[in-house]
């Protein structure tokens, strides 16, 4: 009886799936999606003439611009989720005890904040920019493998659900409390805690999916940038953003498969009794080595494209080209190589052989040079330039300022004697947040504002943009500078409670976090309302780049697009002739 019931259910399910497939095949003429191979004759990147409408379009699109938008939305949702998680933590930290939430829930928020921001916000939001703009910048019709591009994106939502599964009401499943580094033996489920729970397995599986997604994307970008460039776009003519995406993709290609393998080993240890990371087997240090061999390149995977964005945008509002363009290119490549040789600077205190430790210190100091070189290039570009303090430019300048603090604190960490004292304190948290929030997020905001007219056809509200910038700048520095001092004072990281002497600094940090939240709300409001009803941009040069001879390929594409749209007569109450005259008031 029971078996026939199950059989019936299976058959029903099968019929349902066939029905779905048939329906999709009907509404979809899949072939229409194949981008024009070449015969497009000057139809730059517009190989997607026929698109279905509504939701189907977004579910089935293989157009690099649509996929870029999808990545963007996904990244922003993750940013909100990760941001709410950290707000929970910071509000809890207003006072020394565990008053609002339990210690274990704090640990869960901490773990998922880190993983969400790095894997579900950072990497995807960068992919949003690269998907949308790299093909336009190198004048390719689309990505080299449009469908792989779509698959890579669609692996992310299930990955996110798996990662967040612990928070969903799913019976006995609890969220992971392993921190983003998943150190064994804790993450192997050993001991008396609850980390043998399936919630951790689901998180690991989700991470694995996002890694597969990133790897597929990286292969696609490497193929696209190497083979799909227009003839004029030689290696000497490749723009800096595409250079950083190419390098980043190389890093992903070598780093993420390694993470994937390590995660599978961890799953085997957890579920099938293998001993890769058990004390009697490979040992817990093996995990740390594997993790950081991925983990350090990962931080450069996250920072290189934003560096490219700043190198690309900052000169346009300085009225001159990037100083030492090739310095920036070569130093990007140098960072790419060296980032694989520094991983154990995260493990200085583990008692590893001092000779090895010394070598990791040496390469960590060497890698600081290429980063510093870029900083000098940006400063020199602005020096005596005609600066226009538009919102994207403000975010670029904020990037440079915060990156200096983040980079210098990193060099301190790289010095073994200093790190022995500062390791696992809030100093480290301050260091990497100066880079990740103060620099990476700033550059991404710069990109979102700079190209807002291209992907929405409209202009954002300038005044709100400035509010967003200043709140974010103040919030970032208040939050993370307090963390640096906390670290010097000896406050260890990853605790839900603290001693009363740290109260003031912790409260300052939390106030900073609330200021950041306020800025972010303004930004979300600004983008949502401007996207829907902002003034339409009328010409393809809202930043008046032609004046300074800084016009680039993506704006020319945009200009063509507007012109075609105008002949269609797709008009509304079009206000703007001065485009996004942000320049006027700056």
């Amino acid at each position, binding site marked *: 009886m029971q078996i026939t019931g199950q059989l019936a259910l299976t058959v029903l399910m099968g019929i349902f799936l066939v029905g779905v497939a048939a329906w999709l095949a009907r509404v979809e003429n899949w072939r229409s999606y194949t981008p024009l191979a070449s015969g497009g004759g000057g139809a*730059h990147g517009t190989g997607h003439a026929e698109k279905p409408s509504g939701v189907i379009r977004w579910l089935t699109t293989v157009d690099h611009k649509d996929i870029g938008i999808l990545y963007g939305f996904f990244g922003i949702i993750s940013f909100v989720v990760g941001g709410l998680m950290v707000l929970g933590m910071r509000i809890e930290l207003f006072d020394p005890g565990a008053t609002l939430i339990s210690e274990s829930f704090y640990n869960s928020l901490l773990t998922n904040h880190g993983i969400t921001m790095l894997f579900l916000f950072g990497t995807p939001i960068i992919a949003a920019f690269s998907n949308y703009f790299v093909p336009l*910048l190198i*004048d390719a019709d689309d990505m080299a493998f449009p469908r792989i591009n779509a698959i890579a994106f669609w692996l992310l939502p299930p990955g996110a659900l798996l990662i967040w599964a612990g928070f969903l009401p799913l019976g006995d499943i609890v969220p992971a409390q392993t921190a983003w580094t998943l150190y064994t033996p804790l993450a192997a489920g050993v001991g008396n805690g609850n980390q043998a729970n399936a919630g951790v397995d689901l998180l690991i599986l989700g991470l694995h999916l996002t890694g597969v997604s990133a790897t597929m994307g990286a292969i696609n970008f490497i193929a696209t940038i190497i083979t799909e460039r*227009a*003839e*004029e*776009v*030689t*290696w*000497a*003519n*490749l*723009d*800096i953003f595409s250079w950083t995406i190419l390098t980043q993709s190389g890093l992903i290609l070598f780093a993420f498969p390694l993470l994937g393998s390590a995660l599978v080993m961890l799953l085997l240890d957890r579920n099938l009794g293998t001993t890769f990371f058990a004390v009697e087997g490979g040992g817990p240090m093996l995990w740390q080595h594997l993790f950081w061999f991925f983990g350090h390149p990962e931080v450069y995977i996250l920072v290189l494209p934003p560096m490219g964005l700043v190198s*690309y945008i900052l000169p346009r509002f300085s009225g*001159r*080209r*990037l*100083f*030492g*363009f*090739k*310095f920036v*290119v*070569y*130093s990007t*490549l*140098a960072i*790419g*190589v*060296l980032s*694989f*040789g520094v991983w154990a600077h995260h493990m200085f205190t583990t008692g590893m*052989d*001092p*000779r*090895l430790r*010394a*070598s*990791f210190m*040496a*390469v960590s*100091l*060497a*890698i600081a*040079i*290429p980063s510093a*070189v870029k900083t000098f290039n940006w400063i*020199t570009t602005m020096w*005596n*330039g005609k600066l226009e303090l538009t919102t994207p430019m403000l975010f670029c300048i904020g990037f440079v300022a915060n990156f200096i603090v983040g980079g210098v604190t990193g060099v301190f960490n790289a010095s073994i004697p200093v790190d022995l004292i500062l390791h696992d304190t809030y100093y480290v948290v301050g260091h990497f947040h100066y880079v990740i929030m103060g620099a990476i997020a700033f550059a991404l905001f710069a990109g979102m504002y700079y190209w807002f007219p291209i992907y929405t056809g409209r202009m954002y509200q300038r005044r709100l943009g400035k509010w967003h910038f200043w709140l974010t700048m103040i919030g970032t520095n208040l939050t993370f500078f307090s963390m640096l001092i906390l670290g010097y004072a000896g406050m260890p990281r990853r605790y839900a409670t603290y001693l009363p002497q740290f109260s003031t600094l912790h409260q300052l940090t939390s106030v900073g976090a609330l200021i950041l939240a306020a800025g972010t709300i303004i930004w979300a409001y600004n983008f949502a309302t401007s996207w829907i009803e902002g003034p339409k941009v009328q010409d393809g040069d809202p930043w008046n780049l032609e004046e300074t*001879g*800084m*016009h*680039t*390929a*993506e704006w*020319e594409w945009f200009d063509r697009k507007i012109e075609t749209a105008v002949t269609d007569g797709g008009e509304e109450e079009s206000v703007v002739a001065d485009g996004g005259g942000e320049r006027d008031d700056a």
Partner: protein
Amino acid sequence: MTTRIFDRETILDLTVNFIPLAIILFFVVGYAVVNPFGWDPLASGLQFALLVVPFALLAVLTYLSGKAISQAEDERPVYLPGQATVSGAEPIEERESEGAIEGDAGGES
């Protein structure tokens, strides 16, 4: 051939990567001279491998990328990055002789 590819200009651009190379070299020599932790075939071997391998890889990548870029410069016109496909954009050399871009102290020219 090599001398033509790596002209003075290219070498100058590449100096940016010579500096980290020099730092690594400095530590190779330094750790060979000052050796407070003693000699052990495995540990010391790894110690120097961790310096020599990144050094070699960086040297190779610097060479290859320098070559690719300077060859591309010789073969086709050079535009401002991102402008190669913009209609009406002029190659960098012409612009410079016309003095179209001013105050450009450095850059790749």
